[in-house]
């Protein structure tokens, strides 16, 4: 089957970044094709923990995070569903004086960014969050943060893009993309060729090969954060929980299931797929039962994990290509992409339309990794895929 499509923007990767960019671009009047090798939102965008959190992000991410913060309460109007977004607040716990000092220092460093963090001592914690057990010294609370259902939000953005007139092409892997005159030529799926003026590379854990095709190597590795979910329970966990220094994060959805993360899965023979480790999942479960006494009699009904791209400095790559006009990158969110993704979509759309964006993104330039050739890995070789970065981020906790 041979088919041709002539469009303004081709987006490689139908995750939350790609589909929110597609929706925003369509709203600006561009013709858009959204290509995914599998199903839109079926990878990290759809299988992450579901934290909608600004607290804990590096300060350079906060303008972008604030921009996305404005999108979340408007989901219903924007994509037709609220995505089970709940502004529950995000409570980051401290296990030691040193952790508490880190939370205090963080609060000072983000003054003026609108996070309105509140430090809570041991007694305050017992009074307001008495359901938390374990040896917790204190916490930092961000009342405006929350959580949402990634399965719905990611699929919802793609569905809204489709309704808006985006060509949503699933099960259509991009085999090749080259610069062609003033635009790009793409070969995809079963005999599909596309001509596009702009290309957005939002291919997540698979984005490295596309950047490389244009002489830009980003040293991304793969991480497989794994999650445990309990059977539905009466309300126990009223806020999105994080832990300074990592190790555990937890939330309870409206239906009553508690979602708990904190360990890493392992890739299967095909590194595109992964599965939690049994002992790792048990460690999360035991840890959760200790931290939340209300879960002591609960059962775990399901584990899952996803494939996520991680960068050495834990910041994503967002912005124009440094080698190829008309190409834009957005990948490598290192386990913290869910909350900011709708903001990234808007930024990408502005970049395409105006060549610039009102949101500072310089820190995320692909150029920060230095000489492209020095970090070069062969596309498809799998090199660097499974080396886990030290203390890489939580999975959208």
């Amino acid at each position, binding site marked *: 089957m041979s088919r041709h499509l002539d469009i303004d923007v081709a987006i490689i990767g139908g995750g939350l970044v790609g589909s929110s960019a597609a929706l925003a671009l369509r709203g600006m009047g561009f013709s858009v094709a959204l290509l995914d090798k599998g199903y839109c939102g079926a990878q990290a965008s759809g299988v992450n923990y579901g934290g909608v959190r600004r607290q804990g992000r590096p300060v350079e991410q906060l303008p972008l995070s604030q921009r996305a913060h404005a999108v979340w309460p408007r989901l219903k109007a924007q994509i*037709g569903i609220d995505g089970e977004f709940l502004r529950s607040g995000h409570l980051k716990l401290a296990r030691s004086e040193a952790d508490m000092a880190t939370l205090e220092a963080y609060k000072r460093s983000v003054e003026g960014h609108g996070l309105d963090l509140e430090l809570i001592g041991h007694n305050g914690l017992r009074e307001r969050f008495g359901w938390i057990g374990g040896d917790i010294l204190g916490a930092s609370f961000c009342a405006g943060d929350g959580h949402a259902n990634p399965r719905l939000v990611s*699929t919802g953005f793609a569905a809204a893009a489709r309704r808006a007139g985006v060509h949503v092409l699933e099960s259509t892997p991009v085999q090749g993309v080259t610069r062609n005159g003033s635009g790009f030529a793409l070969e995809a799926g079963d005999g599909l060729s596309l001509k596009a003026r702009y290309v957005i590379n939002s291919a997540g854990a698979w984005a490295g090969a596309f950047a490389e095709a244009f002489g830009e190597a980003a040293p991304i590795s793969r991480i497989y954060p794994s999650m445990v979910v309990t059977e539905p329970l009466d309300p126990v966990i009223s806020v999105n929980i994080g832990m300074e220094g990592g190790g555990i994060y937890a939330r309870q959805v409206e239906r009553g299931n508690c979602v708990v993360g904190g360990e890493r899965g392992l890739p299967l023979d095909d590194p595109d797929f992964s599965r939690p480790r*049994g002992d790792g*999942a048990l460690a999360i479960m035991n840890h959760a039962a200790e931290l939340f006494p209300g*879960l*002591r009699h609960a059962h*775990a009904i399901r584990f899952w994990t996803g494939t996520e791209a991680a960068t050495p400095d834990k910041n994503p790559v967002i912005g124009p290509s440094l080698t190829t006009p008309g190409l834009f990158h957005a990948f490598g969110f290192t386990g913290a992409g869910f909350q900011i993704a709708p903001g990234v979509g808007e930024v990408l759309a502005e970049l395409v339309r105006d060549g610039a964006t009102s949101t500072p993104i310089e820190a995320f330039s692909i150029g920060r990794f230095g000489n492209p050739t020095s970090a070069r890995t062969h596309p498809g070789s799998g090199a660097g895929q499974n080396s886990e970065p030290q203390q890489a981020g939580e999975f959208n906790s």
Partner: protein
Amino acid sequence: MSARPQPLIVGAGPAGIRAAQALAEVGLRPLVVDEAPSCGGQIYRQRLVPDERSSVALYGSEAAKAEGLHRDFAALTDRIDYWPQALLWSLREGKADIAVGGASRQVAYDGLILATGATDRTLPIPGWTLPGVFTLGGTQIALKAQGCAIGAKVVFIGSGPLLYLVAWQYMKAGVSVAAVLDTAPFSAKLNLLRGLVLEPAVVLRGMRMTAELKLKGVALRYGVSDVRIEGGERVEGIAWREGGGEMHLACDGAGYGLALRSETQLADLAGCRFRFDQRDRAWLPERDAAGRSSADGVYLAGDGASIAGADAAELSGERAALALLEDRGLPHRPERAAAIEHSLARVSRFRDVLEAAFPFPAHWAKDIADETLVCRCEEVSAGELRRAAADFSLSEVNRLKAVSRVGMGRCQGRMCGAAAAELLAAETGRAIDAVGRLRSQAPIKPIPLTLALGEIAREAAE
């Protein structure tokens, strides 16, 4: 000793028992892991506590087979390791995570025989979640293991040989059987005449049971459709259509099932390749005639690999064990293996006959009422599934799960997955094998959050 780890057999039903026996005969010492408190599987399940019933009362014409299996397994005690009441909840790269006695132990194995059995297959009908409605298998277990009936006046609904067998067993136990409602027309039963050549004893036994039911005045209805179970707090009656007429009957218990479905989660976790089987109308792990799966060292036997019944399970369990022995270069009795394969081929031809006599009413899926629950764990109705498929333009069952929660609950889709796939296929006008297969995830059944990390697991985690 740094010898090879022991082979692992999952399931102590007819397939698992015969597999263990064949391995033990040449001196291998398998570990047999089983969820039940005693061996026998579902078909030859033993009583929880001894009572006055005889083997014949419990197992009918199959009493000798049941006794034989129980006895042979007991005789293996010194030559195998056996963990009853143990749940193998995760598998990965030659290591199994097994919950037993409140702790999880990680066991390395070399050679894995999956004899995981089957559960009932159903399609949602109005009222199927009311108290008093059981699957046919559950109806039978209540009688066999606990010596109790699911009601004082019971109706049996569905398709498959189990429908008549359980009705007959209830009648024999003195329970009032109100009716047997077969979803297939009587004409379908004529196919059984072809089966007389292949398995005369089985067919004649079935005919005798049916005749006895009829003789005792049990109403046998064929070609029923639009079945609804009625009641407020629990089952009070059943309504159905038959030959254009509307029928109704009062009852306080209902046994319902549309034959069986294979338990394939562990084969999935073990990395076996799956194919769609038209006869079972299900995705099944691929296997050769000997029971080898596509994954090295993983063997499949019994109803967990494909529905074939208890006699075939004994055979395929032994055959899979012989394949394991052959692959290890141990004595493996090629003549016996060939004879077993010959018998299994005959069973397979008989299965074709049974499928024609007891067809699965797949066409029901398109008529499931919008308000009927499909996924009872997550309380997802047929209407919600239809809306999700339409709103998100979905045509693949894992995506349907992602947006609707169908199959995400305690049963992990074991009970509702097939129905969700049928409904999605009907809704999107696609063939059943084109909507995909629900991916399995550990734990294959719920496990307590406080399940302790056993010592072996701790070592492996370091």
